């Protein structure tokens, strides 16, 4: 009788345990954008991203936000010009949302559909590949998001009458840990 009771108890609770809510927090991040111009290449780096993930019933929602003015290219004049070009005075944040199945944490390569809000525009990027490595309790995610200026209706800045390239790939390195 006790065995039957225990078995019934386990059968009822295991699914509940498996579907228990969990949360993730972004511990560290490095976001690097790359701008190409015929005369020079420029990169800007930010370590100021904040992020959280909320998992429920086997599905996880992630939200990452980074201030536009946190990107440092090594020259404050260039950074302020970048801020002006991407309408950072009016839209100071870049927000990225994605929805992943919870079992994606078992995959080496995660394909994510991203919704990116930037410069007052919202764009969907489908099937962006991220590499996933687990180190202890930390989850390392790396990848490159293929942003373009035209996607966000940003006029390409020019140097000596030559415009920069439309492609602005953003390399992402993130360390997540469960809360």
């Amino acid at each position, binding site marked *: 009788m006790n065995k039957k009771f225990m078995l019934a108890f386990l059968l009822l609770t295991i699914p509940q345990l498996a579907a228990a809510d969990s949360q993730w927090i972004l511990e560290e991040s490095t976001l690097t954008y790359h701008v190409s111009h015929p005369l*020079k290449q420029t990169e800007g780096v930010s370590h100021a991203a*904040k*992020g*959280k*993930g*909320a998992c*429920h*019933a086997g*599905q996880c*929602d*992630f*939200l990452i*936000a980074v*201030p536009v*003015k946190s990107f*440092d*290219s*090594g*020259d*404050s*004049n*260039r*950074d*302020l*010009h970048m*801020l*002006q*070009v991407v*309408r*950072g*005075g*009016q*839209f*100071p*944040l870049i*927000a990225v*949302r*994605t*929805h992943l199945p919870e079992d994606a944490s078992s995959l080496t390569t995660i394909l*994510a*559909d*991203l*919704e990116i809000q930037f410069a007052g525009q919202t764009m*969907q990027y*489908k099937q962006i590949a991220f590499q996933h490595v687990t180190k202890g309790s930390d989850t390392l995610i790396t990848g490159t998001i293929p942003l373009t200026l035209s996607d966000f209706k940003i006029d390409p800045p020019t140097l000596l009458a030559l415009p920069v390239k439309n492609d602005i790939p953003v390399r992402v390195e993130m360390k997540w840990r469960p809360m």
Partner: protein
Amino acid sequence: MNQRAEKSGVALSVLIFLFVISIPLRAQDSNSSLSGVITSAAGAVVPNAKVAVKNLASGQLTETQTDSGGHYRVSNLMPGEYELSVSAEGYSTNTAKVTVAAGTGQTTDVTLAGVLSLQDLGISPDQAQGTAADQARLNKRSHMLMLHQRLGLIAAVPLIATVATSFGAGGRSTSTADRWTHLALGSAAGDLYFMSAYFAIRAPRIPGTPSRGQIRVHKALAWIHGPGMILTPILGAIAFDQKSKGEKVHGIASAHGAVAIVTAAAYGASIVSVSFKF
């Protein structure tokens, strides 16, 4: 008896007739439907989402659920204004007003936002939203610095020419034309220089953004070529006057050449400091 039966039969026929013709009318009133797909902000379909459709005039509520493909369909709706409310676990509820026309199948897709918000990340609404005034300030700054850059590059042309013509204007040379050419080019360079400097000085500052990188070198060099562009023409005027009187340039005026060369060199370095990465 027969008359009574006959009358009853007629009444019954009328009733049946009225009933039959009323069926298509009722069908016409309520054969509208509302359907669509529920997706998340990331584009994934949302199965088992609760869809509630409420007639705003009558208050009548109809509920359904999305299928595995995120599709929902609510049939037999009367035409009118409805409130469509969609909720699902892990998402914030989304509500929309929909107008359903008679005899139509309306499609309304709904996107559900994740439960996470910027406030969950510790980002306040003030931090999340800038202002048009801030953007206007950035725009003005960029525009003025662009003018500063262009005028500064243009000024380099007469400045180089001024230095080149200095050899014919000073020293043992007695040529009046060379001196006037040197003076004119120097004046043009000076005018363009101060116009360029105006836009740099008056460009709006952005609070909370200290100078970093090679721009600091560019700004520091201005402390050399700025005073130099004031002192050089003053000394040059004295030297010009002495030469015009047939005298040899002497006294403080003899420093005109050296001050001019240092000024021009600092100006050139200033342009290089923002053109190349070191």
